[in-house]
């Protein structure tokens, strides 16, 4: 086996090929456009010449004598009858033509100027500069030179060079043939090239005008034999055939002394074919197409874009030891775990080095073969391959398992199946932040999905409507150690984005703790034990005895999962921000107070344990570390599930039922609003509408109408809300932050409200009206997209259409936003990907140039910061002051006000986004997730 680096790359240089080099590396000259003869053999000096490499198994290469896979393929070349411009280099050529003399070829600069430029290059070398700096320097030189209209050497007046896209150069409007261009470039002396950023030792400018075209090896453009026996050639071959044909005709016509016009036409055609051979999406010329009308995929198309060589084959390769399948939830797993299907576990392997101490263990495992039987209905890992010390891989089968096991020696490597506690990386695309790829420990399980704890959904942004995720098995001890320390899920509970928890309870977990703690309910022994059955705890607290029966309170049960000396005070999500907070006596039970690890008052909801917001979670992670936080989350998950199962929880459309009189009331409010809108319209028509300052009459009307309708919707929502109390499941979810909002509920029970596109009432569609159901110029509420109905009562056809218009905008927005932010993300990452934090605290790039003298200029890890601050002074203060209620209250006040605004902004944008997401995908189906 080869190990280590045998050769080190000192540097890489990209340059242009000279025609001589093209001919020198050519295995054969290609002169004929025909590829195969009648018997199906490749024609010599054709595009499929056997000197260019082999693609058919069994044959040998005529150049190197190797077979398929051994022969690397060899270049050929085409001698072009007339020179043509290389499309990829037109910018360079233009720059060179503009900055050098048309007759003597010198750089249009005096000796002194040139000297100064040379000095700048020397300075740059001394003081360090990146590729961009050098390019700018060269560009500057060319620009300065092209300003001189008279040659300082021969006094020749210079013409104005322009470029007709894509490849035609003109001087003062007269066309320059590629031949003339080439001659000019030839005249530029070597010593004038360095200031223009060209090294004359490796590149001469005239090489940018092609006289010989390299023909890529057949291995690069293999032909496919169809079932019918017909051959289908690669797009590149097709293009080269075109080039050869025109080249041939051009040569014949030129040699026969054909009229200049014909020769020029053919020459231009040759230029077209060579141009499209390089890039078939050159702007300004039509792309070359197949007979079927499909544009050809030529050189640039092979490299560019998402499906190109770079993005799909080089920066994103397919890998081994990976698996992908649908995900599903499992609250019984720890946040650090991932459930892996047995079938996947038997394919994915971990290499284990055989040592004296594990020899017997591994021997036993190998004996079991590649598919060992289950023991006590439990999964038993097997072995797929054994690698001997000499590097030979032996596949373990039922037949040879016994003998391989016998022959196992220290120094062998056993590729065993995945088993519990193995370390793997788990990932969900789009991998936008580091929490998109975290290390989990394996739990091999039956069935076919990957499973994980629901608290880990937010960082992956995963749900279970058909989402798939990837898993990668780590192959070395170093990788495993690194992953466990840096990438493990519990290490990512606090996000570097906002210094709060990204991993936390969601949905039913929040509902569960809400039901457990809101108004401190009592549970009898049976219920208590049912709730606690999966929760890790020491012993039951002392029960409350009522009428001789033992009860445990929700607060007592929740306190079981808190650290012993835990201490915190805050307002829960259900808090309505009363003018004067009654604190412990809060009517809503929204004042959460925890002392010495005991929940004294308050409701545990999103603000306490939710992802993004959970204050308890935040404090536990910060003060007690990741292990404690993981344990807390695992316990809370189970506690919440226990609580919600004891209580029972469901929601349905009847949660939005409101009494008859409320419906009538809502109807009245809405009819009244619609009437007032028509009054405004009337006033506007009669010209008696009072104009608002700084607004036109039209705008005034719109503002007033929007105000009236907005208020009407709110009022309808409030009327509906009055009948939706805390005993209502939907309300519990909305208020506790588990799912949905009161706005959602009021739209279901009350009124959906005004639909808008670009923040305005709907107006487009037909001439002067939105739909033919209305009169032209109707400015009333119904005609411009006000939806009076609720989701529950159902929309009228016109309302439905308006609602779709509003919904469409959201979809378009999301689509546009994701593609744009994806592009920004790629640019940002390519700018930052090689930055590294060094031992001395500086941030440097790969060239060892300092970017920051200290990471982030303050050396603070944003993960461990408190909402961006290095130290949480308030928290320390409150700890020192202890129960000093007065001071504590002030601190809380301050903290809440600041924290709440950040949080609110954050959540508002999030909620908007969520609202825009269409949620009617029932799962399954490709690409629906």
């Amino acid at each position, binding site marked *: 086996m080869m190990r280590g680096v045998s050769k080190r790359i000192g540097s890489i240089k990209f340059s242009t090929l000279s025609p001589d080099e093209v001919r020198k590396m050519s295995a054969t000259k290609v002169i004929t456009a025909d590829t195969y003869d009648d018997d199906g053999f490749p024609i010599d000096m054709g595009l499929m010449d056997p000197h260019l490499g082999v693609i058919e198994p069994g044959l040998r290469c005529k150049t190197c004598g190797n077979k398929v896979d051994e022969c690397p393929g060899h270049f050929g070349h085409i001698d072009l009858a007339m020179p043509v411009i290389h499309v990829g280099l037109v910018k360079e050529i233009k720059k060179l033509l503009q900055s050098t003399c048309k007759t003597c070829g010198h750089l249009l600069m005096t000796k002194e100027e040139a000297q100064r430029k040379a000095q700048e290059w020397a300075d740059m070398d001394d003081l360090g500069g990146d590729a961009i700096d050098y390019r700018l320097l060269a560009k500057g030189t060319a620009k300065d030179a092209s300003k001189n209209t008279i040659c300082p050497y021969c006094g020749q007046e210079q013409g104005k060079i322009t470029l007709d896209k894509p490849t035609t150069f003109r001087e003062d409007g007269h066309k320059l043939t590629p031949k003339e261009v080439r001659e000019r470039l030839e005249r530029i002396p070597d010593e004038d090239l360095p200031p223009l950023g060209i090294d004359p030792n490796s590149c001469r400018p005239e090489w940018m005008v092609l006289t010989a075209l390299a023909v890529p090896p057949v291995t690069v453009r293999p032909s496919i034999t169809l079932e019918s026996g017909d051959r289908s050639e690669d797009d590149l071959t097709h293009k080269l055939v075109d080039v050869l044909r025109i080249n041939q005709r051009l040569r014949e016509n030129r040699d026969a002394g054909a009229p200049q016009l014909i020769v020029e036409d053919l020459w231009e055609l040759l230029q077209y074919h060579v141009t499209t051979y390089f890039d078939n999406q050159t702007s300004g010329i039509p792309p070359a197409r197949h007979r079927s009308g499909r544009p050809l995929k030529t050189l640039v198309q092979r490299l560019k874009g998402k499906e190109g060589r770079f993005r799909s084959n080089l920066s994103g390769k397919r890998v081994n030891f990976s698996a992908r399948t649908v995900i599903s939830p499992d609250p019984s797993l720890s946040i650090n775990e991932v459930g892996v299907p047995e079938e996947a576990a038997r394919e994915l392997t971990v290499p284990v080095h055989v040592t004296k101490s594990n020899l017997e263990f591994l021997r036993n495992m190998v004996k079991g073969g590649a598919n060992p039987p289950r023991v006590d209905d439990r999964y038993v890992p097997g072995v797929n391959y054994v690698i001997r010390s000499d590097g030979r891989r032996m596949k373990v089968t039922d037949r040879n398992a016994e003998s391989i096991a016998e022959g196992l020696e220290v120094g062998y490597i056993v590729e065993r199946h995945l088993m519990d506690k193995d370390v793997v990386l788990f990932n969900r695309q789009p991998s936008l932040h580091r929490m998109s790829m975290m290390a989990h420990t394996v739990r091999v399980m039956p069935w076919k999905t990957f499973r994980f704890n629901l608290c880990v959904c937010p960082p992956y942004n995963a749900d279970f409507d058909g989402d798939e995720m990837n898993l990668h098995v780590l192959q070395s001890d170093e990788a495993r150690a690194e992953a466990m320390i840096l990438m493990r899920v519990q290490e990512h509970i606090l996000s570097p984005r906002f210094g709060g928890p990204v991993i936390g309870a969601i949905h039913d977990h929040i509902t569960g703790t809400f039901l457990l703690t809101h108004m401190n309910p009592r549970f009898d022994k049976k219920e208590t034990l049912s709730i606690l059955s999966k929760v890790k705890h020491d012993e039951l607290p002392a029960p409350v005895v009522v009428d001789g029966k033992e009860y445990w309170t929700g607060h007592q049960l929740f306190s079981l999962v808190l650290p012993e000396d835990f201490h915190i005070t805050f307002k829960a999500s259900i808090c309505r921000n009363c003018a004067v907070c009654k604190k412990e006596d809060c009517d809503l039970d929204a004042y959460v107070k925890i002392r010495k690890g005991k929940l004294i008052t308050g409701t545990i909801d999103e603000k306490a344990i939710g992802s993004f917001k959970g204050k308890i979670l935040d404090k536990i992670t910060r003060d007690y570390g990741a292990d404690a936080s993981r344990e807390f989350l695992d316990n809370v998950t189970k506690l919440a599930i226990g609580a919600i199962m004891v209580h029972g929880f469901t929601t349905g459309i009847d949660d939005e039922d409101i009494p008859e009189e409320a419906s009538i009331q809502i109807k009245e409010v809405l009819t009244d609003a619609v009437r007032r809108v028509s009054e405004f319209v009337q006033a506007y028509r009669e010209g008696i509408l009072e104009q608002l300052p700084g607004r036109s009459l039209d705008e005034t009307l719109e503002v007033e109408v929007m105000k009236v309708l907005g208020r009407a919707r709110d009022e309808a929502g409030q009327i509906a809300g009055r009948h939706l109390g805390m005993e209502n499941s939907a309300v519990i979810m909305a208020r506790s932050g588990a799912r949905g909002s009161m706005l959602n509920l009021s739209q279901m029970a009350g009124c959906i409200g005004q639909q808008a596109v670009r923040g305005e009432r709907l107006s487009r569609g037909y001439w002067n009206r939105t739909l033919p159901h209305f009169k032209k110029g109707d400015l009333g509420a119904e005609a411009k997209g006000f939806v009076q109905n609720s989701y529950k009562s159902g929309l009228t056809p016109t309302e439905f259409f308006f609602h779709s218009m509003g919904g469409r905008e959201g979809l378009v927005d999301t689509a546009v936003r994701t593609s744009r932010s994806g592009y920004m993300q790629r640019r940002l990452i390519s700018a930052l990907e090689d930055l590294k934090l060094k031992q001395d605290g500086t941030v440097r790039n790969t060239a060892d*140039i300092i970017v920051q*003298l200290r990471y982030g200029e303050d050396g603070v890890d944003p993960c461990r910061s408190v909402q961006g601050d290095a130290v949480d002074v308030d928290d320390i203060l409150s700890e020192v002051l202890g129960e000093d209620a007065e001071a504590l209250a002030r601190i809380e006040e301050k903290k809440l006000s600041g924290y709440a605004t950040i949080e609110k902004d954050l959540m508002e944008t999030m909620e908007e986004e969520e609202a825009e997401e269409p949620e009617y995908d029932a799962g399954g189906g490709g690409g629906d997730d």
Partner: protein
Amino acid sequence: MVESDLNVLEHDLVPEHSLLSEQEAEKILADLKITRDQLPKIRRDDACIRLLERIEGPIHPGRIIQIRRKSDTAEEFIVYRLVISKELKG
């Protein structure tokens, strides 16, 4: 280019720039254990450098500028920049 009367160095949002003497520069480089070319750069035609030149006389490429930045989290943060040739246009 027409020089503006505005002294950007006096602006609230522009951090304090100062030229290091050669001895100071050498000491900084030694402390950081780096060579000049590893420093972040500042162009000689930067508005701040042109203003500094009025006080310090010509500042040739290769000199080091000290910039004291106010920071929310670190109070004050000092960075060094290497002056590079001025005739660079984007």
